[in-house]
């Protein structure tokens, strides 16, 4: 069984790596700073909203790009929303793909859009895994009697 100090270090190292690898940016730190004893689950709640919202948008995007005649305005609108929510939680890599994605929408470039859709799904899946792991580590630390840094 790991000690509290070890769990804490593991958590800090993991979080640091997420920033270093560009999965998260400063906005995530802002979210953490808004969490306190009166709102202890704020980050998890917002991130869960992001998961729900993103999955819905990715489904809509898949459908929209699968149409015989693609409505690029609609596609752009979905990407705009995804860009906004990823930016709000600090999911930097997802946000960056969305920026490229919007450019392809503007150009009505279906191939570019399909590529971006695949990319954004990948990046979303990655950051989702990372965040879920992060929350798990936090839970372990709390269960062992430690406090989240």
């Amino acid at each position: 069984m790991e000690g509290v100090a070890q769990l804490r270090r593991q958590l800090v190292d993991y979080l640091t790596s997420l920033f270093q690898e560009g999965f998260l940016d400063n906005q995530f730190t802002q979210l953490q700073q808004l969490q306190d004893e009166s709102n202890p689950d704020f980050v998890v709640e917002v991130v869960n909203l992001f998961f729900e919202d993103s999955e819905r948008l990715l489904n809509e995007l898949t459908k929209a790009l699968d149409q015989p005649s693609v409505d690029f305005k609609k596609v752009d609108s979905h990407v705009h929303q995804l860009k906004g929510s990823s930016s709000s939680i600090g999911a930097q890599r997802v946000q960056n793909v969305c920026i490229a994605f919007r450019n392809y929408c503007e150009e009505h470039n279906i191939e570019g859009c399909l590529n971006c859709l695949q990319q954004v799904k990948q990046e979303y899946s990655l950051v989702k895994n990372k965040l879920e792991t992060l929350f798990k580590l936090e839970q372990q630390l709390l269960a062992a009697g430690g406090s989240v840094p």
Partner: protein
Amino acid sequence: MGSIATESQFHVLAVDDSLIERKLIERLLKTSSYQVTTVDSGSKALEFLGFHEDDQNYPNQPSVSPNNRQEMEVDLIITDYCMPGMTGYDLLKKIKESSSLRNIPVVIMSSENVRTRIRRCLEEGAEEFFLKPVQLSDVNRLRPHMMKAKYKDHQEPPKQQVEEKSEVEMSIQSQQEEDELPHEQHQQQPQAQGSSNNKRKALEEGLSPDRKRPRYSGLTVV
């Protein structure tokens, strides 16, 4: 202590069609000890404010008290720009055209750093224009606007407002050329997470270097 602000709680109405954004802005505002109401559209905001179309036609009705149509007094409205149906700009216009609502300070939020958009909103009477994601440092700028609106009948306007106004005029004039800010600025995501957010510095050229954010308050004197 004699501080008026600590006795009364300011009430902010936040408007955004995104649930995540509403949750975020609510938390930011509550952290700053404001009372918060969130709605998901401009029309719901107007409904909450007790907006009536004929306010525009009959501006001076002494028999009608300004608050009798509002359920709760609102001290500031903060709204997203890009919303389906009524945009934040449309909402701003309606509020400024309403005799009962025009004195409520309005702040616009947007994820897009477009110069013409910012200028349009400020010219229409918005107090501030925040780039998303909104941060605590942005929310800290709200209190003076609410104080000014609440106590404007009891105080002379502070001298610094005049200085700010001419500074703003100068900075707007020196930036007539471009409509859209260069892509680098927009896409400049913080690579290292300690760096100050360059993307937040809309229309920074021409302003003094120690200013982190351009000051756009005071363009319209109500």
